[in-house]
């Protein structure tokens, strides 16, 4: 029978490396996805995944067994991503090479997904690059992670209203950039 996350955490706490390895194997790809969306860079995302599991290992005694391990881990990943983005801001480095290697590493998309042409993909990439780190984070947390606005505010250290506005600004920027691409579809329908 497959070991549950909670059982694996319990064994990892007792020093069972194989149990922690199981958690890494089970969750690393999902954590990569959120890290990539937050950082927009594959190498950064890999670093965030690594840092997330290191922090999880250090903090594993603080994990409450009634909680969901995946949610707990995602929260750590979000914080690691934020730390990385803030560190990048401190070093005045600009987000330049965001979603730049999609074609090189992506597998074939699932059949039922909307498949974007290379040109559209580039435009979505360019639109995402226009978001500030805060806007990007707030948008990813709301749109992809489904995090409530209050939680986003806490995560970013801003008021609820400010979090709402940040999400709104992100969506508006995306809409301004991408709306011309969807209008022809509207006309045809």
């Amino acid at each position, binding site marked *: 029978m497959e070991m549950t996350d909670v059982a694996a955490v319990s064994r990892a706490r007792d020093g069972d490396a194989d149990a*922690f390895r199981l958690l890494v194997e089970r969750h*690393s790809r999902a954590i990569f996805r959120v890290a990539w969306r937050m950082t927009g860079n594959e190498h950064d995302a890999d670093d965030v995944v690594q840092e997330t599991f290191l922090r999880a*290992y250090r903090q594993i005694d603080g994990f409450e067994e009634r909680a969901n391990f995946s949610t707990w881990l995602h929260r750590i990943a979000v914080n690691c991503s934020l730390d990385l983005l803030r560190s990048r801001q401190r070093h005045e480095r600009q987000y330049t090479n965001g979603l730049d290697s999609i074609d090189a590493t992506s597998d074939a998309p699932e059949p039922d997904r909307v498949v974007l042409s290379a040109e559209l993909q580039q435009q*979505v990439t360019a639109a995402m690059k226009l978001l500030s780190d805060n806007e990007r984070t707030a948008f990813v947390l709301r749109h992809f992670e489904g995090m409530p606005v209050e939680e986003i505010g806490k995560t970013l250290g801003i008021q609820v209203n400010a979090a709402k506005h940040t999400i709104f600004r992100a969506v508006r920027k995306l809409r301004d950039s991408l709306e011309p691409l*969807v209008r022809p579809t509207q006309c045809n329908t």
Partner: protein
Amino acid sequence: MQHLNDEELVAHHYGDADAAEHLHACAECAARLTTLRQVLALVDAAEVPVRGAEYPEQMWNRLRWRLERRERKTRRWLLAIAAALAMVLAGGELLRNRRAPAGTRQPLAAATATAPDQGSNVLANAVGDHLDDAERVLTEIANADPARDLDVSSEQSRAEDLVTSNRIYRQTAMRRGDARIASVLSDIEPVLIELSHAGKLSSGELAELQKRIESRNLLFKLRVLNSRTERPNHNLLAANRMHSL
């Protein structure tokens, strides 16, 4: 009819507000919502780079090394403290022996036998891990491209730790009369000190350091010493590493 503003539309889309009634009655706002959703669908469709089936294994390999290093670091400090305590105990024993009346003195060898023998295992175990770490650092330097500057700022704290532990082990080895360990640790210490102070090595500094490592055969000495160092304790992660290889 007053139309919904953009913020209200976004809030409705994410379920943070309910504007269904208005949207049902207002075709214009409904069309704007449709456009918004089409835009967001484009964002959803942007592909995330896929990490293949091998990714978890790769990630574990990266993590294992860092987790293992962290465990070793903690253990090394504990062992270093234990070794230092053993030295203190042995020193105290010697002192007491010297102060004792001539007839009651134990032979010197007997006086130093207990604590140093315990310290010997402790030292061998701790030094082995220390040598592993030092070898990794020196290998990274030796293999770096000498034509380019090398940023070693991320390795600074690691080098600082190594300098501290290197001193403890070197002094302990000298006191125990283990010239072989003491000599190698003396040889590598200047390089570790230099690394602990360097945030960034220019290509010239890097080349100079590589020359020193090579001319003094530091890596070779480290490897020979490491291979001859008995380490009775192997932690779980190390065992796991062997199992995975």
